[in-house]
């Protein structure tokens, strides 16, 4: 820890003893000082919003921007800042540009279309569990199931060869690292974007039934998008499409194994209760744990706090999901509670595009894994697990399990 140059504490903050709970200091702020200044890596001091209502207010306010190029925008890491200044996908745009790009994809991720993928996702889950059962014990659940399942699914949906997974997993790991330098991050992005750009160009001449082919023929070939823009969009989808779900599968499994009464409910749950359990795990774990970043476009007041134009804003969805005004006894994992109003997918126009896919993947995996391997247990004490404190998306690096 470097010596503080001001009273504002460093953000992100350190977690406490429970690996599933947000940092204790965030909880204290939610109770005692719900809007406050924090200091981030570049020395700037954005406002931190912790209350559920304030987080939703920040993320829906039209006077608030998600554009990382604007002065005052509180970038998550040096890498994010370096990359976004060069390759911008719609997550860093405001409407109407944001809406125009997002709408090229909303059809592919709509609830009905994702639901049609459920049998294929089930088949993948079964094959991966077969492989795990046939292999040695203990196994690393991350490599055996949590990472391959969403990677394979997003590859099929986008039209990215799964055979190239070692390459894009390696790039992706750098892109979500809190510790990577700007140079490392930029290099990983260049490498991945170059690869995705070549893929898009190939699909112009040889299209298939996948998202990249539709972008290639519908947007790039017509001149509506450049190859680089399509590649930036593809990178967002590919990285977001597997990092998040993979971490929810592994960390969700740790949380359930540590709460056997809840695991028993999930194992026996009907479809509706299973869907609810997924919402509660999303709320409880909120793996996107670095806050949603925005910047104020004008002087205004949010959550009783006077915000000036150019002030950075951090909407801390992880602690907002522990706000007891919305979730009584918020520190309790209760898969039967009403939880789907959580903000784990964010809120506002940037709320996760892939959420229907994430939901179906998690429903399929949790049920399949715990039913097919009822004796599943951790092969290492929970406090010896390697938690992803160093990543923008939380989870575990490895998960040794046995049965």
């Amino acid at each position, binding site marked *: 820890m470097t010596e503080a140059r001001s009273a504002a504490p460093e953000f992100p903050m350190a977690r406490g003893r429970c690996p599933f709970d947000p940092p204790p200091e965030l909880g204290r702020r939610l109770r005692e000082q719900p809007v406050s200044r924090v200091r981030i890596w570049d020395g700037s001091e954005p406002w931190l919003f912790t209350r559920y209502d304030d987080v939703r207010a920040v993320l829906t306010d039209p006077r608030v921007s998600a554009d990382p190029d604007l002065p005052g925008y509180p970038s998550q890491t040096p890498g994010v800042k370096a990359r976004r200044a060069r390759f911008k996908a719609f997550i860093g745009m405001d409407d109407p540009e944001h809406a125009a790009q997002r709408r090229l994809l909303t059809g592919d991720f709509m609830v009905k279309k994702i639901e049609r993928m459920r049998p294929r996702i089930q088949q993948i889950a079964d094959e991966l569990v077969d492989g795990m059962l046939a292999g040695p014990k203990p196994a690393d659940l991350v490599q055996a199931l949590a990472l391959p399942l969403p990677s394979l699914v997003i590859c099929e949906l986008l039209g990215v060869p799964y055979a190239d997974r070692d390459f894009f997993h390696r790039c992706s790991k750098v892109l979500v690292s809190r510790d990577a330098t700007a140079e490392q991050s930029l290099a990983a992005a260049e490498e991945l974007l170059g690869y995705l750009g070549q893929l898009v160009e190939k699909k112009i001449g040889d299209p298939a039934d996948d998202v990249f082919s539709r972008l290639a023929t519908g947007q790039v070939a017509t001149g509506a998008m450049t190859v680089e823009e399509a590649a930036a969009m593809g990178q967002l989808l590919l990285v977001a499409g597997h990092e998040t779900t993979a971490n929810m599968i592994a960390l969700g499994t740790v949380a359930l194994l540590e709460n056997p009464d809840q695991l028993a409910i999930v194992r026996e749950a009907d479809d509706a209760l299973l869907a609810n359990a997924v919402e509660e795990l999303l709320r409880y774990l909120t793996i996107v744990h670095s806050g949603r970043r925005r910047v104020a476009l004008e002087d205004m007041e949010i959550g009783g706090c006077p915000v000036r134009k150019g002030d950075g804003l951090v909407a801390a969805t992880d602690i907002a999901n522990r706000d007891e005004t919305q979730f009584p006894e918020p520190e309790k994992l209760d898969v039967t509670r009403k939880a789907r109003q959580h903000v784990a997918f964010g809120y506002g126009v940037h*709320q996760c*595009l892939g959420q229907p896919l994430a939901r179906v993947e998690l429903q399929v995996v949790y049920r399949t894994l715990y039913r097919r391997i009822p004796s599943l247990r951790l092969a290492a004490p929970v406090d010896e697990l390697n938690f992803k404190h160093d990543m923008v998306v939380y989870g575990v690096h490895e998960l040794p399990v046995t049965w």
Partner: protein
Amino acid sequence: MKVVVDQSRCVGAGQCVLVAPEVFDQREDDGIVLLLQDDPAEELHARVKEAAQLCPALAIELDG
């Protein structure tokens, strides 16, 4: 209860479809919200209200 949806605001998150599929659907080509009925029966009101509260784009308005 009168339900109004603003298709220009919709971001296709699909929350409304999951909560109240009797009332909300998504357009096949771009996933944008489709209102199936603008005056839903009383037993659907609670779920329609929840859909309006969940909508991240604030694209669902209720009257009554």
